[in-house]
């Protein structure tokens, strides 16, 4: 077991903010080796309940890999390689205890990676991802959702390195914090010199439902190329009173509106999973009834 610096911010900032990185003990237990490549099933579901090294590579056919990560403590490394023209979708549903996640992805020309990550009541999760968009016209789309309560902590770092000309990244993050939950989200779009015509967007929306939560958001854009378009945005706080009035005016009582909006906060993320079985499982975990009866 050794302490390790994780989730380092690519461009460090004021030390007193405590966002430049985090430290955790890494359990050096034996990791399972899991390889997913060019599988014949359209959907590949993997349950990870102990440390694992997962390798995902693409094929001619679009591929959907769904990982359920739920362990007491585990280190899960995932390496994704999307070759030229390949399309991969990776879904990670994370719950449980102390889980340290690392995702490394590489995208070749015209490759496309869609990442859906949902964190549900993670006691202590540290999740770092580095997406290297080396390929021309490579596309990275991510949807990240989290629902945290009690003393849950979540520390996320998403570092998108755009090298490829006309590469395109889009990141949507939505979450709910209650009680004593603590969360850091560091999202970096790093436009490298030569990434002509690249664009990248990132948007985080955090709903805070108790006065004891701690939310830290660090949306970074690094840029060394003129011909790019990048943007990021964040909205953090309580429910907009205008939303409350609108919903009340259609007959929904205020107390219910909070619950409703909290549950819906992740709705648009869950819908991106694209696997009905997983979607309804996640909806159940979120305490949201399914549409079909």
């Amino acid at each position: 077991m050794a302490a390790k610096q994780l989730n380092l911010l690519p461009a460090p900032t004021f030390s007193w903010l405590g966002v430049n990185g985090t430290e955790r003990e890494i359990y050096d237990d034996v990791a399972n080796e899991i390889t997913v490549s060019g599988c014949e099933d359209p959907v590949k579901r993997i349950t990870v309940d102990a440390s694992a090294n997962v390798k995902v590579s693409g094929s001619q056919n679009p591929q959907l890999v769904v990982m359920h990560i739920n362990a007491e403590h585990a280190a899960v490394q995932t390496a994704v390689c999307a070759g030229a023209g390949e399309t991969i979708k990776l879904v990670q549903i994370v719950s449980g205890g102390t889980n340290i996640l690392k995702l490394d992805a590489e995208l070749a020309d015209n490759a496309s990676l869609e990442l859906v990550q949902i964190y549900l009541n993670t006691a202590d999760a540290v999740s770092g991802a580095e997406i290297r968009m080396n390929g021309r016209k490579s596309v990275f789309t991510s949807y990240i959702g989290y629902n945290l309560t009690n003393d849950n902590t979540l520390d996320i770092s998403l570092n998108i390195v755009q090298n490829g000309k006309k590469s395109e990244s889009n990141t949507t993050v939505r979450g709910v914090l209650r009680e004593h939950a603590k969360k850091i989200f560091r999202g970096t779009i790093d436009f490298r010199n030569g990434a002509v015509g690249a664009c990248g967007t990132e948007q985080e929306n955090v709903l805070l439902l108790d006065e004891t939560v701690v939310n830290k958001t660090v949306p970074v854009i690094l840029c060394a190329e003129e011909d790019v378009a990048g943007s990021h945005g964040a909205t953090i706080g309580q429910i907009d009173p205008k939303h409350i009035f609108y919903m009340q005016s259609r007959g929904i009582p205020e107390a219910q509106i909070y619950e409703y909006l909290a549950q819906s906060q992740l709705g648009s993320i869950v819908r991106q999973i694209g696997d009905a079985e997983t979607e309804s499982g996640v909806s159940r975990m979120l305490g949201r009834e399914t549409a079909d009866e």
Partner: protein
Amino acid sequence: MRQKTQVADIDRSLYDFRYDEDAADFLNSGITPEIIREISEEKNDPEWMREFRLKSLEIYSRMKMPVWGPPVDGLDMRNIVTYIRPKSRMNTDWNNVPAHIKETFERLGIPQAERESLAGVGAQYDSELVYHNVRKEVAQSGVVYTDLESAMHDPKYAEIIRMHFMKLVPPGDHKFAALHGAVWSGGSFVYVPAGVKLEIPLQSYFRLNAKGAGQFEHTLIILEENSDLHFIEGCSAPKYYEAGLHAGCVELYVGKGAKLRYSTIENWSKNMYNLNTKRALVEEGGRIEWVSGSFGSHVSYLYPMSILNGRGASAEFTGITFAGEGQNLDTGAKIVHNAPETSSHIDTKSISKSGGISTFRSAVTVHENAVGSRSSVSCESLMLDGISRSDTIPAMDIRTDKCDIGHEAKIGRISDDAVFYLMSRGMDEQAARAMIVSGFAGNVSKELPLEYAVEMNNLIRLEMTGAVG
């Protein structure tokens, strides 16, 4: 006249002039307790100040350089002479100012500016105030505008200065704050009594004029309840080939219901390390407005902080940073929401050109007690070529649910459509691009007094097309 299409550097002929240093008392380069004692002796510091300087030096020698931000390795502290005093003493009559110093200021346009509408001029030449004058009506309203060093010896202000000096920015804040505490010299003291609202802005213009000299002026402004002041700080320094250091400190106390606007157009020469610390403490219902333009310096670390300490206090920061060749400008703002119903707004623009690096860096923190607070941050960056760099590093730390925090940032280039549109109306490409950049800087220029806005637009136009007008 045909315009030059490209100029690598702002035409600084207006600013780049200097006179041979006369036999000012150069102290040894490098900083030791002996030097600090000498400075203290020379200034006839009160006992507490001498202690304060020595303690700050101790902190300075213990502290590490910042681990983030632009590199400062070009800065050799042993080579920075921290204290240079020109021969002239305090003058309240322009006619008594020595001719060469006078000429320097005249070329900077200070007396004209004063004649035109400024309330007072406290111009720092090297480390001492050499020229000082506050218009009579300002003085009659009870407003004090003087140099900090003589105010410290005036029994009327000695105690208030001791109570406030480096209380907002303690020497332990960072290494350069500690350095400042040890070697500070010169600067302004402004006191606005309760209820007094100054209609015209107060202005200070200071500059460095000795090779390798550091500048450590301290500005202390205290606004009592329901008062109102606009303070303008302008800087410009001639060009040198040795690294220069500016580690000033600005402390602003904004009382209940008071309003302070603090405007700066910083245009140090491009060899300067500008490690400046500015901070405001705002009480109930008070307001601080920062207007900040950063054009000069080789390296800048500048993030004015607003501490909103009373219910309903508010802060607004409007800034622009233009980083050209050889410049690494790291600028932004810090806001601390430390009381209920406080609000803040940050609006910044940055431009990178000819290999310049501009970084927007911010921190918005909302404490548990800041119930009902709001904050919005908007920053936009413009890349003018593919060899420059522009980074945006904001951070938010939110610890209450009853708040609304918004942040948005954009980065991009000048749109071809916009250039085409302007060209279709008869403008050449350079002029079109210059106009778009000026428009981009509109957030700041519309907040500045007219003469400053004109000067700033000229700076931008020069950088863009090589001609003014």
